[in-house]
């Protein structure tokens, strides 16, 4: 065929076919998405500090292991309360003259998804310690340590944020380990990662591939509680540790804790629902129960896990008691 023997027409044809298809599957959808999506009403633009933190996140290649996308499948439900939508990314534009837009959606989940990490783990103390040495808070973590985001000073200056590192990970460091501004920015960025809620009246997309709900078997009229150990690991273990012993100077132990063992539930449930900052020797605790939308059944399971493990041996509680206490706390906090 003559067509195949003329290099100009042949290569022109191949190139046009490729560019034509490219226009349809890449450029037009990309422009369409860019033009027709706006950020959600309660989307917060990045503050200068957070923006610097995001740049640090990009520079260190965190996206290699952490995604920022909640897919519309049920297995992703633990990473956010609703599937991600185009509007979630609409506020992200070119980083600077040298760098492209960074939606940081990622393709590998060697570590957890970070879409909603600002809600799930907002604690400054935990995040700094975790950055300094991930294995000091999560033994089995394989995340790199970022000691170069910290400096060692002999004393503390005004405004310094000290990181209390367990002796095992101090490696003969004598002075105070202090977070640099870059570390603080990076944590500020992580704290800013929250899935904004949809405007009122909008129902989010459904998660697909839901697991069939197991019918709760009411043996002896007792509702089957969710897995307390799993909930504890997901919501509490990062700070208080799997063995309930906490970390010295950062997170208090629950093993043998009077609050955990006490029969008075008011303080216990209040700490879970509203956070706690009464003891200067430990870090601030955030309102885990409220932030993570824990149900009375889930909180009951967590409390019972804490009351009956690591040598703790206190009376377990029922969801009804907890529900009552939660309502009471809601009432008092509104005043």
């Amino acid at each position, binding site marked *: 065929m003559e067509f195949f023997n003329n290099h100009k027409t042949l290569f022109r044809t191949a190139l046009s076919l490729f560019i034509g298809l490219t226009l349809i599957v890449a450029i037009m959808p*990309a422009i369409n998405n860019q033009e027709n999506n706006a950020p959600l009403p309660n989307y917060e633009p990045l503050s200068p500090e957070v923006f610097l933190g995001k740049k640090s996140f990009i520079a260190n290649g965190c996206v290699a292991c952490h995604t920022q996308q909640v897919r519309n499948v049920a297995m992703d439900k633990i990473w956010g309360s609703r599937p991600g939508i185009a509007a979630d990314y609409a506020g992200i534009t070119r980083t600077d003259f040298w760098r492209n837009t960074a939606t940081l959606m990622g393709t590998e989940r060697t570590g957890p998804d970070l879409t909603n990490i600002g809600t799930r783990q907002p604690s400054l103390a935990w995040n700094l310690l975790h950055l300094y040495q991930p294995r000091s808070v999560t033994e089995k973590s394989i995340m790199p340590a970022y000691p170069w985001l910290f400096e060692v000073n002999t004393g503390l200056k005004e405004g310094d944020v000290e990181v209390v590192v367990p002796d095992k990970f101090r490696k003969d460091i004598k002075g105070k380990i202090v977070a640099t501004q870059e570390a603080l920015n990076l944590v500020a960025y992580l704290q800013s990662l929250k899935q904004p809620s949809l405007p009122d009246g909008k129902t989010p997309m459904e998660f697909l591939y839901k697991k069939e709900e197991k019918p709760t078997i009411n043996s002896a009229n007792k509702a089957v509680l969710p897995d307390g150990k799993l909930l504890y690991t997901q919501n509490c273990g990062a700070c208080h540790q799997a063995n309930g012993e906490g970390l010295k100077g950062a997170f208090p132990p629950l093993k043998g804790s009077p609050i955990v063992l006490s029969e008075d539930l008011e303080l216990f449930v209040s700490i879970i629902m509203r956070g706690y900052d009464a003891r200067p020797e430990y870090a601030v605790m955030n309102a885990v129960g409220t932030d993570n939308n824990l149900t009375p059944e889930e909180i009951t399971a967590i409390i019972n896990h804490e009351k009956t493990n690591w040598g703790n041996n206190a009376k377990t509680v029922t969801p009804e008691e907890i529900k009552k206490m939660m309502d009471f706390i809601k009432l008092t906090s509104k005043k």
Partner: protein
Amino acid sequence: METKNIFSESGIIITMLLIAIPIIAASILVMIKAKAVLKKYLKKKELEKFNEYLKGLSPDEIEKLEQRKREHEFSLSNLELSGDKEPIDCKGLIDNISEVETLRFVEQKKKSQPRPYIEPDLSKLILWYLGCATFWLLFGTTVGEYLGIKFVAPDVDQYSWLSFGRLRPVHTNAVFWGWASLAMMGLAYYVIPRVSNVPIASIKTGYRSLVLINVSVILGSIFLMAGINNGGGEYREYIWPVMALFGIGIIISLQNFFKTIAKRTTKEIYVSNWYIISAMMFLLVIAIIAYWPSWQNGLGETIIQGYYMHQGVGMWFMLFNLGLMYYFLPQQLNKPIYSYSLGILAFWAQILFYTLIGTHHFIFSAIPWWLQTVAIIGSAGMIIPVVAGTTNFLLTFKGSWNKLSGSYTLPFYLIGILFYFTGSLQGTAEAFRFTNLVWHFTDFTVAHSHLTMYGIICFMLWGFIYTVVPRITGKEPPQITVGAHFWLALIGLLFYTFPLMYGSTLRGLMWMEGTKSFIESVELMAPYWLWRAIGGSLMWFSHVLFAYNFYVMVRKKDEIEIPKSPIDILRAKQEVDKQTITN
């Protein structure tokens, strides 16, 4: 635990089978021994009887036996047909006889074919390309190996420049743009003038490209380690000024190739050139689209990223290598490609389907659902070019399978072709919605990309390099190290990918189940990450051998050779005589 449960555990069954093997073998051995003892006893009895009989032999009988003994001892003198003249081969028919005096530990493979004429300047350019590529292979995979170790020992170092997130793109980009791209370009500088039957338009341009691409990878690697990157899209980590250098390098060589093809003395354009020129044009298109800022806001970035990253592997590496394969495979088998038109069909089908599949990296994400579906359909459509290509190559092999065992290059070709089939179809399977649920975000993707980028691209490139370089330099690599390179790379790749695929499947299922915490899925992967590091080490070592082989093939210094053939001996004598006269 109940007893019946124990015996239904696969681990127990396998262990019992393993223990049974030596027991059964020992029993058989005992029986054979017992039989031998019995047989020996019976023979002894028989011998005693026979000795009695010997004592009673008559002289007549003895004479008959001796007569028969003499008849048996008759032999020829070996000169009955030839007489006593010296043998002579006056037409030089028998030559190059290789007598094997030692034990053969390594099978003798066929020598490289005698070299066709290649301009010495072009030869030098090609060797420079391949040499730089070899360096980037070693560099890139050393980094990769180190990253694999970091999965097992995360605190092996704590320097910012060597931290995982920064080093990972250094590895991928160095092997992409440094190793594979430079090797492909070097080979194209060999193939294009040959199939066009004209000299290359400009050798200088070749050197300019080489320098630009090398500078791009050097700067890119340094920038990535210093924390300067483009913002996270895979293979798009180099910032635009660095990638622009690479792009310019490709543009000028593309022009160079195009001019060469325009001057061709053959009427038709051989299909290799279709693939190679298109790959270079398409790479430029995707790089410009990927770096142009007008359509990158919000999800636009992700849509472009999916498109770019997959066209990068499919339209640059795969298309280019297929083009090279259409030249080298028929060359090495010494026969034409099975079906030229099948190659043309695969070419158009690849463009039609491959272009569509980019977004299959973001299935279930916020990208429009119709676009995800198009990507999945395109992935299924890829069966057409993949099957067409594989069939074409395997049918070219047909009838020449015997050449496989006698060649040190063809095994690389064959493995490349086989992985082209399995790796590509695995990609199709991964794109389906259900498999995506299990495997997406796990290390299955990493295993897949190594099965393809390594199994297909690297094996093919090695095959081509071992074919071309001896033709250019006239020197062959030691066959033992080529064999070791092949087997270490192959076994290493299997150790790398299979445990990773198995572990990732378990991890994906654990995520879907949702009853265990995330960190338990990290713990689960630990043994498979260890296997990956072991496989990676084998692969890495094979690259050291490859680098050595390359060195042997190109080193300038000749070994001192004692002349063996009559021509060489006479020539050597003339030279020696000349020297004595001038002295």
